[in-house]
């Protein structure tokens, strides 16, 4: 009979653990069984995913290399506040991380474009026509560089054009052709891909620090160094001509 006493009696088992459950209660307020392991995992998951999202979004914002408070004129954008005490936290982070020294307001203003006038991202393999006029400045220089501002070797050996070198039309406007291959007239050389380079790897490969294309006008001694004065300013149009 020892064996029989250990087997449960043939009646509906009363689970003391389930005694708290009152089936009459509406589901929304019915108390639930505590699940400590599951809750712990949920909290850990929230901590992990939350931190990951926070770090990743901050990294993307900083790596994008585009401060917030920009003034845009067509495809051109300038950050007059970056590198001053009025800068927003993103541009402070971007500028200090890259250790770059901005053009101060009494010196001039840098205006960059990463897309053409139709909004397509600039491609160093293409030819572009930059035509029109710049805001008034005593001197300007135009530079073709990688997406992150890195200069690349060109066929001509120079990487820039200045307002003193270019040929202008009678009305003072100009037309510049940006291309890897030499062009007649105002030619702005675009950096060549560094294929076959040994050692450090090809920085011009997609995603590399020298990839992409960015045009930068630096207007020196220009009246428009403050943001509000940039309203209504005219910048040249960038048109894509042909691609390799």
């Amino acid at each position, binding site marked *: 009979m020892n064996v029989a006493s250990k087997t449960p009696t043939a009646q509906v088992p009363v689970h003391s653990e389930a005694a708290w459950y009152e089936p009459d209660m509406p589901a929304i307020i019915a108390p639930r069984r505590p699940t400590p392991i599951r809750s712990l995992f949920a909290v850990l998951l929230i901590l992990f995913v939350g931190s990951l999202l926070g770090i990743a979004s901050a990294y993307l914002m900083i790596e994008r290399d585009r401060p917030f408070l920009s003034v845009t004129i067509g495809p051109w954008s300038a950050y007059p506040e970056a590198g001053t005490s009025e800068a927003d936290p993103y541009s402070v*982070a971007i500028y200090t991380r890259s250790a770059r020294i901005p053009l101060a307001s009494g*010196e001039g203003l840098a205006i960059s474009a990463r897309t053409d006038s139709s909004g397509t991202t600039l491609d160093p393999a293409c030819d572009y026509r930059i035509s029109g006029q710049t805001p008034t400045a005593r001197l300007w220089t135009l530079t073709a560089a990688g997406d992150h501002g890195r200069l690349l070797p060109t066929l001509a050996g120079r*990487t820039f054009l200045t307002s003193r070198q270019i040929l202008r039309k009678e009305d003072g406007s100009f037309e510049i052709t940006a291309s890897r291959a030499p062009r007649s007239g105002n030619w702005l050389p675009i950096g060549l891909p560094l294929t076959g380079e040994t050692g450090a790897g090809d920085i011009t490969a997609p995603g590399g620090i020298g990839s992409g294309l960015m045009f930068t006008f630096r207007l020196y001694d220009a009246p428009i160094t403050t943001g509000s004065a940039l309203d209504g300013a005219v910048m040249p149009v960038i048109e894509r001509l042909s691609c390799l």
Partner: protein
Amino acid sequence: MSLSPRLAWLTGLVATLSLAAVVHILVVLTIPQNTSHSAYADVANFGPDRQFNLLPDVKPGAEPLPALDPAMKHAACRFTLDDGPVLFTASIPVPFWSIGLFNEAGEAVYSLNNRTSGSDILSMLLLTPEQLSIIRENPPEDLDELIVLEIPATNGFALLRAFVPHSHQSKEVDTALSTAYCGSLS
């Protein structure tokens, strides 16, 4: 007390997003304190403090500092006002030059170019408010010819930019930049 599954998911999502926002803000705000190198530190690589050091030409693959204009030549002088007021003098025979003063965080404090300086010769005295009151008691003779500038920061650097109109003037500009003076008022 526990939540219904739907409410639990919502709470989890809100908690995750709030945490993400807090972490995002913390990361962005702490980057300036945690950068391995700053513009102020990088400028020290070109030579001793309290003198203008000519930076190498801005060439592809050999940019002395990021985002400098390749059409310009640059000279930098790092200083700390704890060592006394800093005098800047330069005479650069080019159509355009400019000087920017930056604090330790790399923020522009003051800047001028050869038109706004009033003359083609740069002469600027940089000091703290205390040093200014000392100098006022016994002013040097040429004080009224100087641009006198009080800045609250003590550490900083100056970057002198000079436009090179033609490559054959490159030597001349180099000489002018390396003879530019940045140092104590004597």
